[in-house]
C-alpha cells in the first residue's frame, strides 16, 4: 500500500467513525438487532398477511406462482417492487406486487428480498 493510499484510508475511516456518532459505553444500551434470517422471516410474514387472492382470478380458476423482488426503504416499506418471474397471469403478478407494497413496517434489511408468492385454489 502506498503512503497516499494509507492516508486516504485513514481519512475515510475517520469520516465514517464521525458519521456513526457512536460513543464508547452506549453500545450496550441498543438491543441487539435480529439476524437477517429472522428479519427475512418477519418480512415474509408481513407480505403473507397482506396478500389477497384476486376475486377475478378466483372466478376464472387462475393459479400460479409469482416471484417478486424488492428493497426495504428507510420508512420500512417495500420499494422498487418488481416481478422477477411471472406467474403467467397479470392478475396474480399484480396481487403479489400489491401485497409487498401493502405489507406494513418491514424490518430493515440490506439488499434485495426475493419472495415467491403462490396462489392456489382449493377444490372446494
Amino acid at each position: 500500500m502506498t503512503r497516499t493510499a494509507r492516508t486516504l484510508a485513514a481519512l475515510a475511516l475517520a469520516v465514517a467513525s464521525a458519521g456513526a456518532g457512536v460513543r464508547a459505553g452506549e453500545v450496550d444500551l441498543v438491543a441487539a438487532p435480529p439476524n437477517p434470517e429472522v428479519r427475512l422471516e418477519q418480512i415474509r410474514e408481513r407480505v403473507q398477511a397482506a396478500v389477497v387472492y384476486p376475486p377475478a382470478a378466483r372466478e376464472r380458476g387462475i393459479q400460479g406462482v409469482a416471484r417478486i423482488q424488492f428493497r426495504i426503504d428507510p420508512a420500512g416499506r417495500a420499494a422498487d417492487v418488481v416481478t422477477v418471474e411471472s406467474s403467467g397471469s397479470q392478475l396474480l403478478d399484480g396481487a403479489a406486487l400489491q401485497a409487498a407494497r401493502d405489507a406494513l413496517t418491514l424490518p430493515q434489511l440490506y439488499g434485495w428480498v426475493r419472495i415467491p408468492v403462490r396462489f392456489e385454489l382449493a377444490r372446494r
Partner: protein
Amino acid sequence: MTPAPVARVARKVCARTSGLPSRSFALLLALACPLFAGAEQAEPPAPPTIIRDAGEVSVVATRGERNLLDVPAHVTVLDRAAIERSGAASLPELLRGEAGIGVSNTTTNAEGYTVEARGFLNGAGSGCRTLVLVDGRRANEPDSGCVDWTFLGLDQIERVEVIRGTGSAAYGDNALGGVIAIFTRGASAEGGTLAALSAERASFDAERASALVSQRFGALRVGASAAFDDTSGYRARSDLNNKRAGVDVAWELADGGELGLSAGYASSERSRPGALDAGTDPRSTDPTTLDFAREREGFVRGALDLELPYEWRMQATPYYRHSKARNHFENPFFTFDSEADNDSAGVDLQLSRDLEVLGKSVRLLGGAELRQDDIDVASSFAKNDARRRVCGVFVQAESWLRDDVLLSFGLRRDRSDLEGRSTQFPGTRFDKEHALWSPRASLTWRFHENGSAYVSYGRGFRFPNVDETFGFFGFSPTLSPERAHSVETGASWRSERFELRGALYAMWVEDEMFFDPFSGFGQNVNLDEVRHEGAELSGRVALLDWLHASASYTRDDVKVTRDSVGSLEGEQLPITPKNRGQLALEAELPLGIEARLAGTFVGDRRVANDPLGSVADLDGYATLDAHLAYTRDLAPGLAFTLEANGRNLTGSDYADFAGYSIFSFPPATRFYPAAQANWSVGARIRFER
C-alpha cells in the same frame, strides 16, 4: 457526477497508476464523492446486489362462483327475488319477458304452453328444441320431447338459468335452441331453516296454494313441498286441477361433497277447449270437441357429488321417472282415446378437475349420459311400443389464455337407438340408429371488469322423437335428425346500476323437422335447410335508487332456405313472430311496497299449418300487466307479503296461437284466444334462518 461514474473513472485510474486494488480505490472515491458532487443533481444510490430469498408466501382460496360475464353464451339468471318481483302466474309467463324466448299457449291454462328459444316456436306437430332441466333432471317428455309446464310451479323454484343457443355439445338431444335450467327451492336451500307458505285467489275461479319446508340437522338436510292449483280457465272447458308433492333429503359429506335423494309426484286433470272460428266469443269452447287429459307423474332422483383421488370431482344424477297420460279426443266424426305409459331411467355423470397444461390452468370436464325411455301407447286405433336408448359422452376444456381471454372447447358424441312396433300400420317394426358429433368452440374476452364479449360456433341436433316417428297421423321411419351449424356473437355489461346483454345469432338447420299438413293426412317431414337468424337485447337500469326500468327485444327471422321436395323455399316458418319485446318499470316504494308495470308486445306471425302464407297472418298484440306487493318483516327472518296482480289490463282481445285447419269445412284459420283482463290476489309468508 454520480457515484457510479466516479467509481468507473477511479477503477480506470487505479488500474493504470497503482497497485491499490481498483475496488478499494473506487470505494474511497465514492465515499469522497459527496464532497465534489456540489450542485450536481442527486440520484438514488445503485440498488444493492445482495439478494436474499425469503420463504414462500402462499394464499389458498376456494374457487369463486363463475361470473356470468365469462360464459360464452347469452345467459340470464332469474333468482327468487326476480321471480317474486315479476308477478308472473307461471314459469312460461315469467319467461315471456326474456329476450330470445318465445311462448305460446293453446288452452289459456298451464297445460297449453310451449316455450322455445331461437325461433323454434314453429307451430304444432313437431317436438321441442329447448331442453328443460329440473335440478339436473330432464323434464322433456320422452315421447314428444316437450315439457309439461303444469308440473313446474313458480312457488317451488329458487332460480332459473336461461341459456340461449345450441347446447348440444354439453347436453345432447333437445338442446338445439337453448337450455332452461330450473333449481328448486328445497334442493337449493343453504340456511338452517326455510319455510314458505303461499295462497292465491284469481280470476276464473282460480285458487292456488303451496307449502315448502326445509330444515338442516347438522350435515343432514330434509325438505318437503306440496302445492295445488285449480281453475275453471278463461274459456269454457279450459279447467285445470293440479296437485304436486315432493320430498328432498341431502347429506353433506366431510369433504364438502353431498349425497342427495329427492322424489316427487304430480297429477293433473285438464280440459282442452279447442280452437275457435274467427268472430266467435273468445270465452267459448269449440262446440264440436270434448277433449281432456289426465296426467300422472312420479320421479326419484339421486344426487352424488364426490371427491375422487387425483383431485377429480364426480357429480352423478341417476333418475327414474314414470308418467301416465290419458288423452281423450272427441268430435262429431270420431272419438279417440289413448293411454300412454312412459318410463325413463338414466344417469348423468360428470367428472371434472383442474389441470396445468403448458403453464396454463385448464378446467377439464367430461361425462356421460345414459338413458332409456320406454313408451307404450294404447289407443282406440292401435298399440304402439317404443324403446329409445341414448348414450352420450362428452368432454369440455376451457382455459384462460390471458387474464382476459377465455378459450372453451367441447365435443360430444350421441348415439340413439329407437326401436318400436305399431299395430296401427300392420307389420310395422322400427329400429333406427343415429349417431352424431356435436363440437363447440368459443372465445370470451373480458374487456373490462364489468364487460365481456364472446363469439362461438357450435353444432346442435335433435333426434326424431317417438311421436314424430310414429304418431297419430302417420309413420315416418325415414325422418332424419335435424342438425344445425350455429354461430353467434354477443356482449354483456353488468354493473350495480346498469345491465345490458345482447346477442346476434345465425343457425343453419339441416333437415329441420316440420309438420306438413299437406303431406298425406299431415306428416312430419324434413326440410332441407332452415335458416334461423336474429338479435336479442335486454337490459336493466336503475333510473333512481328506488326506480328501475328493464327492457327486452327479440328479432327472429326463420326462413326455409332449401326445400328439394316441397315448395317451401323462401317461406317463413309459422308462429314465431319477427319482433317481440317487453318494457317494465319497477318501483321500490316506502313502507315495503313494490310496484311493477310491464308492457309486452308480440308482432304478427304466420299461423300454424300455413307455411305458404296463403291466409292472413295472426295479428300482433300488446298487453299491460301490473304487480303490487306489500312486504312486512314480522320478526327476524320472518316476512309476510300481500300481493295483487292485474294482467292484460287493457283487455286486449288476441289469440296466442292460431292454425289453419284442413279438417274444417271449408278449411279456415282457427284461433286459440288468450285471457282478457284478469287479476289475482295472494299472500306469502317466508321464514328463513
